[in-house]
């Protein structure tokens, strides 16, 4: 039985001093339940993801102690993809009729720093100043620009678009629009990427309620179908974040490509059918690369497509219409559920001032992160 989304809830992303991640998560759940028109005791099972909250399932204390299985999940930046995928799978397999996916986080300021051993990396890699995920993003787009003729101006256009989109989103974090010139005047953090081309870790929560497709009519007239939800890890030879070395005798694409191809096949939907997309924009370069890795254009076409405005809200393929990670920041556990929240509203036609024209029927969400993992979902009306 296919799973459909009947409710979405989003706690704003940003900084909320004195408010715990679990309290934000509980608010997001209540919004999602209200959106679906159900109450917590109707939820039969769920999946909850967080980096900072070691016991995210403790959220039941804020929602109701109903005894349901609420399983904790974590896959780095792809955590929310796992939560929604397993919540859908529980319906597809018949385990439950109504499930929930929850994500929440509350990160300290600055780049993620960690004990290298928890990521399976040697101490020397961190001690010598190499264990910074941001290096990967700078190095991947540097090579990509070299190979495919992408310019610094295009990096600035992407960042400016996402800040502009965020400025019209009352739940976004960085809501001040920035010009391309302001972005190009910000300091280089990891050549060729500048300060205002990066997302930052912040705080927030989101939740998605799903049910069996044949019961959706009880709750909503606008269910959104989960056509595919796929997770893939890196293969040998892929150029991946925090790789101490990469064999060149093996060739493998990014796990994004693997997840994307598997999702299109499972959905019976091709990239030409996608009408709106949310792509992991850890930085402006990542959004550009991910357009091609998700099959939405060919390598190098981004230079022209972005200049033409194809990924603007009124363009042929709007990307990151709510501001993406650049505009919203990245509370890791919640980030992918924010993407789904946006796409669900766009497919329902309830995105308000952000609503894209043309009544899109197929939407796409994509996550990528450590240690070389990607999650893709394809949604449709």
């Amino acid at each position, binding site marked *: 039985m296919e799973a459909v989304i009947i409710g979405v809830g989003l706690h704003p992303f940003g900084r909320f001093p004195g408010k715990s991640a679990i309290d934000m998560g509980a608010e997001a759940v209540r919004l999602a339940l209200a959106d679906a028109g159900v109450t917590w005791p109707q939820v039969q099972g769920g999946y909850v993801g967080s980096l900072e909250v070691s016991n995210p399932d403790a959220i039941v204390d804020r929602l109701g102690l109903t005894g349901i299985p609420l399983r904790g999940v974590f896959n780095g930046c792809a955590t929310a993809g796992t939560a929604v995928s397993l919540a859908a799978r529980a319906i597809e397999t018949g385990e439950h009729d109504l499930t929930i996916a929850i994500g929440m986080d509350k990160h300290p300021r600055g780049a993620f720093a960690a004990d290298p051993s928890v990521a399976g990396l040697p101490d020397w890699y961190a*001690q010598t100043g190499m264990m910074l995920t941001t290096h990967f993003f700078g190095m991947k787009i540097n090579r990509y620009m070299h190979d495919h003729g992408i310019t610094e101006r295009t990096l600035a256009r992407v960042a400016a678009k996402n800040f502009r989109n965020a400025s019209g989103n009352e739940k976004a974090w960085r809501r001040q629009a920035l010009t391309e010139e302001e972005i190009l005047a910000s300091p280089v953090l990891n050549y060729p990427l500048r300060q205002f081309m990066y997302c930052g870790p912040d705080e927030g929560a989101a939740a998605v309620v799903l049910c069996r497709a044949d019961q959706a009519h009880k709750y909503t007239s606008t269910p959104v179908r989960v056509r595919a939800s796929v997770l893939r890890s890196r293969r040998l030879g892929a150029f991946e974040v925090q790789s101490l070395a990469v*064999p060149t005798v093996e060739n493998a694409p990014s796990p994004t490509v693997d997840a994307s191809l598997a999702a299109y096949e499972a959905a019976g939907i091709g990239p030409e059918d996608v009408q709106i997309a949310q792509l992991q924009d850890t930085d402006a370069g990542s959004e550009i690369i991910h357009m091609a890795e998700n099959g939405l254009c060919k390598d190098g076409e981004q230079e022209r497509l972005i200049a033409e405005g194809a990924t603007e809200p009124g363009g042929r393929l709007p990307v990151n219409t709510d501001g993406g990670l650049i505009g919203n920041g990245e509370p890791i556990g919640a980030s992918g559920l924010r993407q789904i929240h946006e796409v669900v509203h766009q497919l329902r036609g309830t995105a308000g001032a952000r609503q894209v024209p043309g009544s899109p029927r197929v939407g796409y969400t994509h996550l990528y992160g450590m240690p070389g993992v990607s999650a893709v979902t394809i949604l449709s009306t």
Partner: protein
Amino acid sequence: MTNTKTIPVAEDLFTWPSDDPRLIGSQCADCGLVAFPAADLCARCGSGKTDRRTLANEGTLWTFTTQGFRPPTPPYNGNDTAETFQPYTVGYVELADGLLVEARLTEPDPEALTIGQRMRMVVLPYSVADDGTQILTFAFAPAGAVAEEA
């Protein structure tokens, strides 16, 4: 008298002391895959039979980026401060052994680096311990720059 002792940041990472330092990798005895750092288990075929092997000390620059601010301590343990921090670069160097190796680069100016240029491995201090012992790591330098200094 100042302490002139040196110590590598990790054992089994590069040959030292040496006039011709090399990175220490490994090669799978069953499928031949070369790995760095040296691994006891092959990431391709899963074999537990691997042998130590030193890697080429020259290669070509595959990509690079900069580090514009001092990384958080811990885990970074350079003896600089936010005030004395000097921006540095990192990159991947393609070696004929069949792999890209990530390393710090000696050239701090990204405009002075070009994808595809020849690079040569060097060993240099990146920090100083409390007793004055210099802590060494490996890096890659533009091949021409090494020749000029020699």
